[in-house]
């Protein structure tokens, strides 16, 4: 057992932190939130040159041959920086899924372009209505037509479609027990999207597939058997979100403690009051426990071990832990923390979005209950 990073991971962490401190100021984050694209092509290219997109992919596709655990370290730093843009969509949601279940031809086709920063990918999974991430909630249909498929229906909360070149679409190919993942051209004119205005200022879209044709060759993985792959995608996405959230709340803890040391009332730093000290201690406990449970899940995923329960524990825990952290962070920051003058709001808004993404605490508690045999 070892709960510390390797030397290489520490280096990766430091490089990432330095780079993001330099390139991803809150001014930049604000600009990206207000911009139509939500990301900077120039920064995207620089990230590709640093090898970030390819980090966890095999060398033969141009990747860095590193592990998911290494990627977890990078995601933590991205969460710490509130990095805007489609990295998560392109790499965690789409790229690693292609690596998992794509044919060699598909991997050769899509991965090098993703890794070089030339193409952006995303995943269209959830749909309107209450979605609880089970197969029955997939209504979007792909019907067979002349050996090809026609996709029809609406996906919701699809990230980054407006800038994506390709998307993975999870569709129903049989009324019962038939889910298939398709690789589609995101620029197809039969895709209509609307960018939604979200709490985190990210670009989540409503996507309407209006009889979009997809060649049979674009099936990713196996026809009708896609759900187990989707479950793995959700699992990895949940852990990826946990990693971002660890970076987020770690930074918020540091900001809050610094503020408590500097801010004076009654002629003394407010951090000298026991009430504030105990709030901070509670925050630190939530941050550390979220960190360990997240990295446990990331490590297990990375090692290819079965980890349904551990992933559920990590996401359920951090969802609620982060809400506690923010309640206290705002209380300690006082009124400045609820203005846009201060950076805290960037973190608050993103934490809520991440808590909702890929299953909230209630969703994962039910999974834990099942794992306990309840």
């Amino acid at each position, binding site marked *: 057992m070892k709960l510390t990073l390797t030397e290489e991971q520490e280096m990766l962490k430091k490089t990432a932190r330095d780079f993001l401190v330099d390139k991803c100021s809150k001014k930049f984050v604000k600009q990206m939130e207000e911009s139509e694209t939500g990301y900077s092509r120039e920064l995207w290219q620089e990230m590709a040159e640093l090898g970030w997109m390819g980090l966890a992919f095999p060398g033969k596709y141009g990747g860095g041959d590193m592990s998911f655990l290494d990627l977890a370290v990078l995601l933590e730093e991205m969460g710490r920086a509130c990095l805007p843009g489609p990295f998560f969509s392109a790499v965690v949601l789409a790229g690693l899924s292609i690596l998992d279940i794509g044919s060699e031809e598909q991997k050769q086709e899509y991965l090098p372009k993703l890794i070089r920063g030339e193409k952006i990918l995303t995943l269209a999974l959830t749909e309107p209505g209450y979605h609880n991430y089970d197969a029955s909630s997939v209504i979007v249909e792909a019907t067979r037509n002349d050996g090809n498929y026609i996709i029809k229906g609406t996906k919701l909360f699809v990230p980054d479609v407006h800038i994506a070149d390709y998307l993975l679409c999870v569709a129903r190919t049989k009324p019962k027990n038939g889910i298939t993942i398709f690789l589609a051209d995101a620029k197809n004119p039969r895709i209509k999207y609307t960018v939604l205005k979200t709490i985190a200022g990210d670009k989540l879209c409503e996507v309407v597939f209006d009889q979009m044709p997809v060649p049979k060759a674009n099936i990713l993985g196996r026809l009708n058997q896609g759900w187990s792959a989707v479950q793995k995608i959700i699992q990895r996405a949940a852990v990826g979100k946990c990693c971002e959230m660890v970076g987020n709340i770690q930074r918020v803890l540091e900001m809050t403690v610094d503020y408590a040391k500097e801010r004076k009332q009654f002629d003394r730093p407010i*951090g000298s009051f026991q009430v504030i000290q105990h709030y901070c201690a509670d925050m630190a406990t939530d941050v*550390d426990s979220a960190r360990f449970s997240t990295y446990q899940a990331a490590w297990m995923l990375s090692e290819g071990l079965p980890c349904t329960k551990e992933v559920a524990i990590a996401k359920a825990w951090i969802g609620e832990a982060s809400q506690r952290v923010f309640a206290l962070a705002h209380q300690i920051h006082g009124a400045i923390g609820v203005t846009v003058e201060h950076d805290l709001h960037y973190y608050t808004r993103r934490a809520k979005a991440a808590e909702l993404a890929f299953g909230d605490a209630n969703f994962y508690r039910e999974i834990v209950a099942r794992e306990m045999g309840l």
Partner: protein
Amino acid sequence: MDFSFTEEQNKFRQELRNFLEEEIKKGYWEPTCDAWVQGFDPGFTKRVAQRGWIGLTWPKEYGGQGRSHIDRLILTEEMLRYGAPAACHWFGDRQVGGAILSFGSEELKKEFLPRIIKGEAYFGLGMSEPGTGSDLASLQTRAVEDGDYYVINGQKTWTSCASFSQYFDVYVRTDPEAPRHRGISEFIIDAQSPGVSRIPMIDITGTEAWNDVFFDNVRVHKKYLVGEKNRGFYQVLHQLDYERSGMERLMGNYPLFEAIIQFAKENKLSQEPAIRNKLAQLQIEFEVGRLLIYRVALVMEEGRAPNWESAMSKAYSTEFEKHLAGVAMEVLGSYGQLMVGSKLVPLRGMALHSYLGSKGYSLQAGTTEILKNILAARRLGLPSS
């Protein structure tokens, strides 16, 4: 990072489980909540000792095994999982032996460590006094030098296991003129010494949980001074870090945890969404806490004393224990109020015992408030209040 155990560690865990299951099968004892601090069973302690499982991490020259802190955590985790009656050796093994190893003279090490390891020396702690709780440096029990002896007068309280203890590890004031942190010393006192007396205190569960321990002109030879004279306060802080470090804060009521899950399953209560949700939340909290405690063992393995790390895990864990007891009582409904000995008492009264007993968990070995002070100062560097 690596969250797995080595093959040897897994083997060791299995060996422990086999041993403990065999003990239960033979009817030597049954799994009980709080057995680490209330289960006195000299025979069990002896059988544990025969396997070399006391003083597991201590150097071989004193009879220890020189094994890792992870191994020891596995050992205690399994003892707690089975609710084994380990109270006779728990304090000596967890902290007094360590204190003697860290600060004691060679003579003290040779006198006590092999006997603790053999399961033949049981310890109680003498820290708190009637007027001294969280503010430990205010203690008043006095030791006055008299030739080769110290003469000790005063009263200690909240001493766990006291009626079984053969020795007390006691902190007393040796220099009343010095600043209060710098006038305290640590002694090992034979419980049979003339002038030592004990009065049991019954806790809210009806158990004899502690004793008041009185010292009336008790003469203790100078060789039983642990470490340097007047350095006791610094030594006790070190010892408390170890006292808080373990799995007993999370798993003291593990038999109840298992039993209530089983009960909910058997009575189909686990299909009620509210109960299902709460039990799953307990499982989550339990497993998260376990990681915080393994972190503490890893800190110890690096050769550092765990400080804010064990403050964090202890404060976290006692909340879990309270939550567990609260949920268990909720699941049992009206049956939860039935006490041991009553007709219809469910789960051998464990939920009730734990519900009442857990009120004290966040007080002993450092209140949650003191632990959060430690976290604020040592982990976060916040200014003193």
